[in-house]
C-alpha cells in the first residue's frame, strides 16, 4: 500500500490512476454542454479563458525553455568559419559528432563514472538512511545533519577544498607523504583522477540522496514492522521485504537524478583543471567539451550540436532506467 502511494508521488502516475483522476476532475459543465452545433465564437472564447490561466506559465516556459532549445537546434545547422563566414550545413555537424573521437571519449568517461560512482553513492546513502531510520542510532539527528551538510557547501568550494587536500606537492597528500615517508599514489595523476572526482561528488551528494531515501522510509506505517516482528522477522528480513520494496520509487528517482547529474559533470573537473592541467583535457566530460568548443574555439554551431546529442543521450539513458524501474514495479 505504502509503496503505491510513494510511487505516485515520485514518478509519473500509474495509468489507471491517471484515468480515474481525469474522470473525477473533468468539470461536469463540459460534459453536459450543448449540442455540437454551438457557435465557433463561443467555443473559442471558452478555450481562450483556459489559456489566460496557463498563459503566464506558457510564456515563461516558452521564453526560458523552448526558445533556447529551439535556438540551439537552429544554431546547430550552420557553421561559422574564420575564413568564409557562416553557411548552412544541414545535419553535417551531427554527422561529425558521431565520428568525433574526443566526444565519444568524454562520453565513455562519464559513462564509466556513472557505472562506478553512482552505485557506490546510492548504496552509501541508502545505508545511512536505513541506519537513521532504524531508530537504534544514538544521536540520529546529529548524523542526519552532518551527512547532509556537504550538500550545503557550494560545489566550487567543495572542489577547491578537496583539490588542496589532493595536492601531492603542498597538499594534505604531500604532507602525509612527508610525515610518514610514504609515497601515496597521486590523486591528481592520470590513473586516479576520475576516482578523485568520484570521491568529491560522492561526498557532496550522499546526504542529498540519503534525505530522499529517509523521507521515503518515514512514510512506511510502523505497524508493518510490528506485524513483521510478530511473524518472527529480523531486521534484515524487514529491510529486504518491507523497506526496500517500499522505497523502490525513491531509489528510481534518485538514480535518474544521478544519471542526469553525472552526464552533466562540469564544475569539479573544470576547477581541478588548474591543478591537473595535463590530465583533465578540454574534452574531459561532454559538458567541458561543449564549453571549450564554444569559448576557446569559437565553434558555437558544433558546440550546439554536441550539446543536443548529449541531451538526447541523457534522455535515452534516463528513460531506459525509468522504464526498467517501472516494469519491475508492475511485476511485483
Amino acid at each position: 500500500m505504502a509503496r503505491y502511494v510513494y510511487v505516485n508521488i515520485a514518478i509519473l502516475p500509474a495509468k489507471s490512476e491517471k484515468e480515474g483522476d481525469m474522470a473525477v476532475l473533468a468539470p461536469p459543465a463540459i460534459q453536459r454542454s450543448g449540442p455540437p452545433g454551438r457557435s465557433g465564437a463561443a467555443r473559442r472564447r471558452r478555450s481562450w479563458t483556459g489559456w489566460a490561466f496557463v498563459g503566464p506559465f506558457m510564456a515563461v516556459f516558452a521564453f526560458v525553455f523552448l526558445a533556447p532549445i529551439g535556438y540551439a537546434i537552429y544554431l546547430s545547422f550552420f557553421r561559422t568559419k574564420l575564413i568564409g563566414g557562416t553557411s548552412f550545413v544541414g545535419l553535417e555537424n551531427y554527422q561529425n559528432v558521431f565520428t568525433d573521437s574526443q566526444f565519444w571519449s568524454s562520453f565513455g568517461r562519464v559513462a564509466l563514472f556513472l557505472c562506478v560512482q553512482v552505485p557506490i553513492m546510492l548504496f552509501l546513502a541508502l545505508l545511512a538512511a536505513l541506519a537513521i531510520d532504524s531508530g537504534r542510532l544514538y544521536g540520529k539527528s546529529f548524523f542526519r545533519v552532518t551527512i547532509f551538510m556537504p550538500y550545503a557547501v557550494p560545489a566550487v568550494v567543495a572542489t577547491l577544498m578537496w583539490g588542496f587536500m589532493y595536492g601531492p606537492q603542498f597538499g594534505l597528500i604531500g604532507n602525509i607523504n612527508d610525515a610518514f615517508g610514504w609515497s601515496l599514489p597521486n590523486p591528481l595523476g592520470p590513473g586516479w583522477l576520475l576516482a578523485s572526482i568520484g570521491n568529491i561528488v560522492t561526498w557532496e551528494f550522499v546526504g542529498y540522496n540519503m534525505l530522499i531515501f529517509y523521507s521515503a522510509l518515514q512514510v512506511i506505517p510502523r505497524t508493518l514492522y510490528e506485524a513483521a516482528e510478530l511473524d518472527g522477522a529480523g531486521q534484515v528480513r524487514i529491510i529486504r521485504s518491507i523497506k526496500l520494496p517500499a522505497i523502490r520509487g525513491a531509489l528510481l528517482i534518485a538514480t535518474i537524478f544521478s544519471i542526469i547529474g553525472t552526464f552533466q559533470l562540469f564544475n569539479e573537473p573544470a576547477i581541478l583543471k588548474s591543478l591537473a592541467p595535463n590530465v583533465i583535457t578540454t574534452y574531459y566530460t561532454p559538458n567541458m567539451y561543449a564549453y571549450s568548443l564554444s569559448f576557446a574555439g569559437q565553434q558555437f554551431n558544433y558546440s550546439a550540436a554536441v550539446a543536443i546529442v548529449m541531451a538526447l543521450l541523457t534522455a535515452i539513458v534516463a528513460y531506459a532506467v525509468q522504464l526498467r524501474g517501472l516494469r519491475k514495479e508492475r511485476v511485483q
Partner: protein
Amino acid sequence: MTINRRAFLRGTAALGTAAAAAAALAACGSDDDSGDNPTVSANDVDAALAAGGTLTVWAWETTLKQVVTAFQAKYPKVTVNLVNAGTGDKQYTALQNAISAGSGVPDLAQIEYYALPQFALGKSLVDLSGFGANSLDGTFTPGPWASVKSGGVTYGLPMDSGPMALFYNKEVFDKHGIAVPATWDEYVAAAKKLHAADPKAYITSDTGDAGFTTSMIWQAGGKPFQVDGTNVKINLADDGSTKFANLWQQLVTDKLVAPISGWSDAWYKGLGDGTIATLVIGAWMPANLESGVAAAKGKWRVAPMPQWTAGGAATAENGGSSLAIPKLGKNNALAYGFMKYATTGEGAQIRVDNGAFPATTEQVNADAFKNKEFPYFGGQKVNEVLAQAASGVVTGWSYLPFQVYANSIFNDTVGKAYVSNTTLADGLKAWQDASVKYGKEQGFTVN
C-alpha cells in the same frame, strides 16, 4: 518537485554557453566589411584630443592606471574608462563576443602579440597605417614592432615586451656550488646536480605551457608557424622544435622539473623557499617577483638566457602586449591619441617608472633605465641584462592566426608528455595535427 542542485548548477553553466552562442549568432549577420581604412592625420588626432570625449579601454596592464591619470591631466576634456575585462584569453573571449554581437566593443583593447593575428585576420581591428603609424618605425624595439604587424599591416602599437632571460635564485646556486648555466647543456647539468644535492629542489617548474614552449622554439631558431594570408604552414618537427623537444625531454623524463603550474599558490611558494631555483621568462618578471615573492628579496639575480651554442646571444619574446583599436570602437582618432600617448614618449616613461619593461628604443637605451639598481635583486642592474636580451631576439617568428585556440589545446596534446610515456616530440606532433585540423575547419589552407 525537488530541483537537483547539481543538475541545476550545471544547467546554469550550459545556459551561459547558450548565451555566448546567441551573442555569436547575432554576429553572423553583421559582417559588413566596408574595407576602407580611415585616413586620420596627426592634426585630426590633436583636434580630437582637444575636443575631448569618453574612451573605454579594456586592459589588465597595471601601469596604465598612472598613464590615464597623467593623460587626463594633460587633456582635461578626455575621460578614459579603464576596464579590466579579464586577463588574457578571458578578455579575448569577452572581446570576441562583443565584436560578434556588434555592441559593447571598447575603443581600445590590450591584445597580446600572440593573439593579435587572430583579431587582425577576423578584420576586427583598425589598420593603423592611415593614422601614420608607419612613421613610428624605429620608435619601438624590433621584436615587438614586428609582432604588431600582420601581413605587412600595422594593427597595434607595442605596449611592453618580454625578451627572455634567466632568473635564478643565487642563494640556492651558491649553497650547492652550482655555476650559472650559460648554455642549455649546462642548464640540464645544473638541474641534475641541484636535484641530486637536494631532492626537494628543482631547477624550474613546468606542467606544459604553450607560451613558454613556443618561446623556447623561437630561441632555438624554429619557425613552426608560417603564415601568408590564409595560407598556413605548421611544422612542429622543424630543427628548432626538435632541439627544444630533445633538451626538455631530458628534464621531464628524469623528473627534474617540479610539477607545479605557473602562477599557482604553490608556484609562488616554491619561488620563495628555493624549491624552484630558476625561471626562464620574459623581462616583465621583476615586478611580479617583487610583489608576489616578497620573502625572497635579495636572493634572486638575472642572467642572460642559456644558449644553444656557447657564446651566442639569441633570445626570444615571451608574452608582451599591444594596444589595438577595434573597428567597432566609436572614436578612432581619440583612441589613437591615447594609444600613442600610452605607448611612446611620456606615457611609456610613466609605465617604465612604474615597473613595466619598455618596448620603445628610447626608454630601453636610456642610461637611467639601464643603471637602475634593484634592491630586490641585491642591487643588480637588472635592466642591463634585459636590454641586452631585447636586442638579441631572433627574427622571423610568427604566431598562428588562431594561436589563442591552439594554445587552449596545448595541454590536451603536448601536456600528455608530462603525465605519461608520450614524448614531447610526439606531443608536439599531436598538437600540430589538432591545429591543422582546426585550421582547415576554419577555412584556412593548411600545410
